[in-house]
């Protein structure tokens, strides 16, 4: 049983995606439901987990009804959360709200003006990941405050927000980290006073390989690529994405990619020779 706060299976926290399958441009809801149905996995979506006890999880649905699911074994992924850090300036004044959003993530060069879902734009997303007040503070990956979710937010009548947070997976996190690190080096070395490289999630892609059986000859994985992570309906009016770079498929080849990435990234983490040429 799969329990998720997604509005539908395949939302993936990024308002879903479209992929080419069998001559059709298909929505990721169809893709994900097909994989789940094939593997006999049931799903409960639009659910907010309220409480977990031994052998039992309680959740609220979008209609504010409460339900229970029993389990022998459960894997729970808690929602993203910022750190409860406080910030003070040199005179001891509390500047927490200047640096951090109420969610605990660091404010960067995003457009945080509250606006309805229909008015969200790719341009709201930060490019330099730099705090607007303190130019020597940056936040990448999970640490920066997104301007809003990517998926359409939904609330139950009880006012419980039931929506996935924007994914900041390994590839985008590391891409942002590299751009920011290189900008900081330039700023320290006096090459530039301001960051010159950008790494907006609305201008970068991501690849995600989810293993569905790890044997080297009989295993499979679902490989998904998406460009850009944050849909840009101004550039790509149909689906918000470049369909030549947005795809999904299941197969052994994808599982081999999972194996390859596993070894490459561990090699890179150990800083072995030529580690820096291995991409993020």
């Amino acid at each position, binding site marked *: 049983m799969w329990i998720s706060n997604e509005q539908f299976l395949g939302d993936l926290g990024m308002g879903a995606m479209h992929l080419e399958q069998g001559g059709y441009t298909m929505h990721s809801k*169809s893709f994900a439901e097909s994989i789940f149905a*094939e593997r006999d996995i049931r799903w409960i979506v639009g659910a907010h987990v309220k409480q977990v006890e031994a052998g039992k999880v309680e959740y609220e649905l979008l209609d504010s009804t409460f339900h229970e699911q029993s389990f022998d074994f459960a894997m729970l992924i808690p929602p993203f959360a910022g750190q409860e850090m406080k910030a003070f300036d040199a005179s001891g004044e509390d500047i927490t709200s200047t640096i951090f959003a109420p969610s605990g993530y660091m404010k960067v060069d995003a457009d945080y003006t509250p606006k309805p879902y229909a008015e969200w734009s790719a341009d709201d997303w930060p490019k330099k990941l730099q705090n607007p007040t303190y130019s020597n503070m940056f936040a990448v990956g999970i640490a920066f405050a997104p301007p809003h979710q990517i998926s359409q937010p939904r609330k139950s009548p009880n006012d419980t927000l039931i929506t996935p947070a924007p994914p900041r997976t390994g590839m985008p996190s590391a891409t942002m980290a590299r751009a920011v690190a290189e900008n900081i080096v330039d700023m320290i070395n006096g090459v530039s006073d301001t960051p010159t490289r950008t790494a907006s999630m609305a201008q970068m892609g991501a690849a995600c390989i989810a293993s569905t059986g790890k044997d080297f000859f009989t295993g499979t994985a679902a490989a998904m690529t998406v460009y850009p992570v944050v849909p840009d309906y101004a550039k790509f009016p149909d689906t918000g994405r470049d369909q030549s770079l947005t795809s999904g498929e299941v197969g052994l*080849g994808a599982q081999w990619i999972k194996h390859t990435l596993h070894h490459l990234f561990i090699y890179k983490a150990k800083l072995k020779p030529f580690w820096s040429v291995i991409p993020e």
Partner: protein
Amino acid sequence: MMQDQIPENKRPYEQAYFPAKPNKFVLFMHTFLPWQIIRFAALNLKIVRLLMKGH
């Protein structure tokens, strides 16, 4: 077959009744080596193109 002999989620109007399910040929291709070698190469190429766009 009586409906109560079918797993609950696969009965008509239940969630697993609707999604597309792969046929035997598609399942065979998922692990068919020559095709998967091509897919491995194609996926690698796609990821390289993604990297070039985003970096």
